[in-house]
């Protein structure tokens, strides 16, 4: 396997982990986050969201550096980084709220995370301007 293929594999794996974290937070928010659900789903949600987020960014940047036809300042890559920042900011607030037991505006934060993640996926597939 080439370096590009390894980087792409780990980038995709991280993206799947990110979405798994998002779905887990979705379960916590939409199922009322009772004590049992919060104890079972809260820690994996946080771990998957954080590991996925860091992995997507790190391996994404490495891919952009590895592939000659991509540059970090390409519009679609800058858009991806902005979307990543938006999702991370909302995810950070939601995870703090879940840990403290009473997340304020949890559904709004979840919606922001979901929309930013969906937009990231669309951006990665369509690569506008690439």
């Amino acid at each position, binding site marked *: 396997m080439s370096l590009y293929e390894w980087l792409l594999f780990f980038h995709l794996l991280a993206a*799947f982990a990110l979405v798994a974290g998002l779905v887990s937070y979705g379960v916590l928010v939409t199922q009322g986050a009772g004590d049992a659900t919060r104890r079972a789903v809260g820690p994996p949600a946080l771990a*998957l969201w954080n590991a996925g987020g860091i992995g997507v960014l790190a391996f994404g940047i490495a891919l952009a550096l590895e592939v000659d036809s991509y540059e970090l300042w390409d519009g679609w890559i800058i858009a991806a980084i902005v979307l990543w920042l938006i999702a991370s900011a909302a995810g950070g607030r939601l995870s703090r709220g879940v840990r403290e037991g009473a997340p304020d505006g949890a559904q709004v934060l979840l919606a922001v995370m979901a929309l930013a993640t969906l937009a990231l996926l669309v951006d990665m597939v369509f690569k506008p301007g690439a």
Partner: protein
Amino acid sequence: MIAIVRPDGWNLPLLVHVGGAMLLVGTLVVVPVVMAGALRHGDDAAVLSRLACRSLLLGVLPSYLVMRVGAEWVASEEAVGDPTWVGIGYMTSDVGLLLILIATGLAWRTQRRGVGGPARAVVVLAGVLLIAYAVTIWAMSAKPG
């Protein structure tokens, strides 16, 4: 960064396929997590096993359908032939559906009769599926053959 060069016409089917696959794995991760929680916390077992069953019925199965429809759509747009990586995809998809259906039946039984052997089997099946899907993600990115 899913592929460097591909015709624009493939983007929408690829989005459906990858989006469905991500939701499939995302909802599948919830299943062993909550079922293992049900096995650990006896008092809350009913709530958690119901959640595992609902995750399979309302999350995993519909996501599987979206992923598979997207896969067939991509395959119809591009003449991929029958290389190893496509074979791995179809194999994990077909066998995976069987395991998902078995896990759903076992989760349904657990929800009605309480946690025990079937709950442990659901955790194991979901774990096996997650490992198989990790191999599939590798095959889709490295495209062996």
